[in-house]
């Protein structure tokens, strides 16, 4: 019990310390930390539409994060969120370009499914490479991130570019405005809150159910804990490693299609850089998942926190006239403190165990 409280308390404490660091930076810039905090809270939660914007920002993080929990629980390190987001976005864009006249109630689910399929393929490739050829998945997913960014740039500058950009000669790498039938319906008028938000939450719940309530998830976790024991019990390690990566990628792929069809522009656009389209959601999603203790449901509030950081930072910048880089730095500091809180938590629990506050189950004795 105490352990559970501690488990939740330490990362929160880490976040508080991180914000204290942010306050020092604000002071150094000559701004008031209190005003800064106020501006951030106001920017993130100050009104219905701001809250909606925060939720929309958190959506890709929830999806990528929930996917990451599936991969990490299977002991596969998926760093390929970026490539999977891009693949999902590209495939769903192609679907919307090919079948623009389908009615919305068919086309919206279809583009989301296309996103899932695209992401699944980009997950399954490094998954299968690891399972069948022992290729390190960290390397292969990072490399595929680079490959997919360039592939996206190629498509958006060439085959998929908006014909108008060619005519006008401006050549902005973006698609034409996609079919309105594919646009994610807005849930509350006057806000940006679209159907992608509940889709992400449902996906996170589904990830939870898969991992802990289905035979498939049982096998994934078994492989994650002990590939040897899983194998001896008749569970295919290769198949499940590939599956974990495919599932993980499919959630990131959905995030990709939401980034396209939930955007105001209703088109896929890049500035040529990796983050230009994804906003680094493929990496921030990993952080959200880790902050959520690799639990799909805890990933939701965790992603909301990072979404709030993103939207709050915009307001911070506007009100206090501090550089935009401060928000990025603040984000980074939160990440560092949260990640490094894990060993602190372990240390705290151990020393509490030594003082006899814990039962022996938390601390095995090495005797004989």
């Amino acid at each position, binding site marked *: 019990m105490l352990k559970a409280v501690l488990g939740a308390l330490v990362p929160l404490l880490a976040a508080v310390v991180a914000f204290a660091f942010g306050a020092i930076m604000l002071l150094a810039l000559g701004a008031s930390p209190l005003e800064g905090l106020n501006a951030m809270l106001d920017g993130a939660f100050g009104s219905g539409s701001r809250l909606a914007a925060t939720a929309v920002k958190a959506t890709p993080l929830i999806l990528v994060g929930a996917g990451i929990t599936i991969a990490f629980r299977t002991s596969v390190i998926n760093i390929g969120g970026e490539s999977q987001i891009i693949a999902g976005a590209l495939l769903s864009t192609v679907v919307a370009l090919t079948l623009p006249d389908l009615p919305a109630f068919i086309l919206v689910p279809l583009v989301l499914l296309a996103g899932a399929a695209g992401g699944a393929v980009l997950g399954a490739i490094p998954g299968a490479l690891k399972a069948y050829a022992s290729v390190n998945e960290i390397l292969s997913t990072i490399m595929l991130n680079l490959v997919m960014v360039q592939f996206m740039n190629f498509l958006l500058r060439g085959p998929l570019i908006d014909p108008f950009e060619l005519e006008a000669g401006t050549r902005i790498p973006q698609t034409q405005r996609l079919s309105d039938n594919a646009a994610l319906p807005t849930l509350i008028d006057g806000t940006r809150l679209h159907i992608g938000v509940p889709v992400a939450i449902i996906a996170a719940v589904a990830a939870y*159910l898969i991992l802990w*309530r*289905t*035979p498939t998830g*049982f*096998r994934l*976790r*078994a492989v994650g*804990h*002990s590939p*040897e*024991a*899983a*194998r*001896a*019990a*008749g*569970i*295919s390690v290769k198949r499940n490693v590939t599956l974990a990566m495919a599932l993980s990628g499919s959630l990131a792929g959905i995030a990709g299609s939401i980034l396209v069809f939930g955007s105001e522009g209703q088109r896929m656009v890049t500035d040529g850089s990796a983050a230009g389209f994804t906003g680094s959601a493929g990496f921030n999603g990993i952080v959200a998942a880790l902050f959520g203790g690799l639990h799909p449901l805890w990933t939701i509030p965790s992603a909301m926190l990072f979404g709030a950081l993103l939207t709050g930072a915009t307001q911070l910048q506007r009100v206090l006239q501090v550089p935009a880089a401060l928000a990025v730095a603040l984000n980074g500091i939160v990440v560092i403190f949260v990640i490094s809180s894990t060993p602190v938590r372990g240390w705290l629990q151990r020393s509490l*165990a*030594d003082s*006899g506050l*814990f*039962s*022996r*189950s938390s*601390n*095995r*004795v*090495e*005797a*004989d």
Partner: protein
Amino acid sequence: MGPETNILEMRGITKAFPGVIANEGIDLDVRYGEVHTLLGENGAGKSTLVKILFGLYQADEGSILLRGEPIAVGSPSEAIASKIGMIHQHFMLVPTLTVAENVALGTASTRRPFTDLDVVSRRVSEISEEHGLAVDPSVEVRRLAVGERQRVEIIKALYRDAELLVLDEPTAVLTPGEVDDLFVILRRMADAGRGLIFISHKLREVMSLSDRITILRNGKVVGTTTPDETSREELAQMMVGRAVRLTPEKPDMDVGPARLEVESLTIHGDRETVAVNDISFEVRSGEILGIAGVSGNGQRELAEAIAGLRVGEPGGSIRLDGVEVTDKDTRSRRDRGLGFIPEERMRDGAIAEFTVSENMVLVDHASRQFTSRGMLAFDAIRRHSRKLVDDFAVKTPGIETPTSSLSGGNIQKVILARELSASPTVLLACQPTRGVDIGAAEYIHTRLIEQRNLGTATILISEDLDEVMGLADRIAVMYEGEIVAVLPAEGATREGIGLLMAGVVEPTAQTVG
């Protein structure tokens, strides 16, 4: 030799870990020139006690007198300086270095900053000769057999002038012949006036080697006795705290049809060497085929091939219940009725982080019994686990307890329960009681025999000759990847099998089918 008779006295040693008192007021004295055995089950506190002696742990209470002088051992290097030597169960040797280099490691050279390997070599030869150890100082350790490596460890201790030697389960890795050789060496060292602490749970060895035996149970001394005053049965009873049946009762069975047939099976090991060479045998319904052999003679590879975890060379065949499964994976072999108790229970047998309940259904989690509408049926799983925990007397706080917090014997019972509850037609049991308490081992043996009586064809791979001889109906002896003999258990002798295990094939040894 000092005027007093005891080289070591440990008085009132108490050591507590969170939730466990590993040692509680333990008194132990070791005389000059005696082999003093510490006997006890896992968790009885033997290792903790000698780790305190060797400076790896600090006692909470109690004192240690070495040669009559009170000492405080703060670290292993202080222990070595006090002429205490320890032979660990797992050798602490660098395989790519020579014997002399291994001995010199960690000692100061007489010619610093240069090495004095020639001096070390000469000294090693002297020690080797003096104690009948027969070890060449210039040979690389990786070229040595297990028994020889152990003698290098002994030389290391003697080189450091150890007068008190602790041997932690030294016979676990040896053949019966090597054990005999070791005992001669140990006896000679004791006769030279050294004090030896011998840790073991093998009653036969304890009876043959010890001068005195101190039995520990639950961190306390149960008693100290001598082999003349006691018997194996009495020792077992003192260890466990109740009467124990050392040889299981085994009714005669009529064997049925062959359930497992292995034909011309050749397996390459991890280093591309031939681990199993053209083996053929069969196991019939209602019999236990014991496979005896020193570890590393192909048993592991054979077991993995039968379980579907390792692929044999083309041309060999494995049939389960008459059906060819050579190219089938573990899953389909299990679906055909194979039960598998792996040798390394914590690596292959159970998932430490999973709950007892999850491990109980590790194999059958997707069966109709444990699923409903695509989801795991937790009620059914819990009911099943609770029943197995009761049926197999698994000592656990509950079925949702992480398996890692169970003792080795209870984890093995979880695996046994899982595998037997599937009513296997063929059961592959590898080292089913290795490192398991006598009480749990007795229970596991009973269950294996019950399963045999139900008609299961069992293949028992074990390095414990007593276990093989007590359980098996037929005994196959493996040596260097081949089955050198198959004998009926009835009439087989320890000595005969021991010779076969060492590769000595007597012309008179009768080989049967």
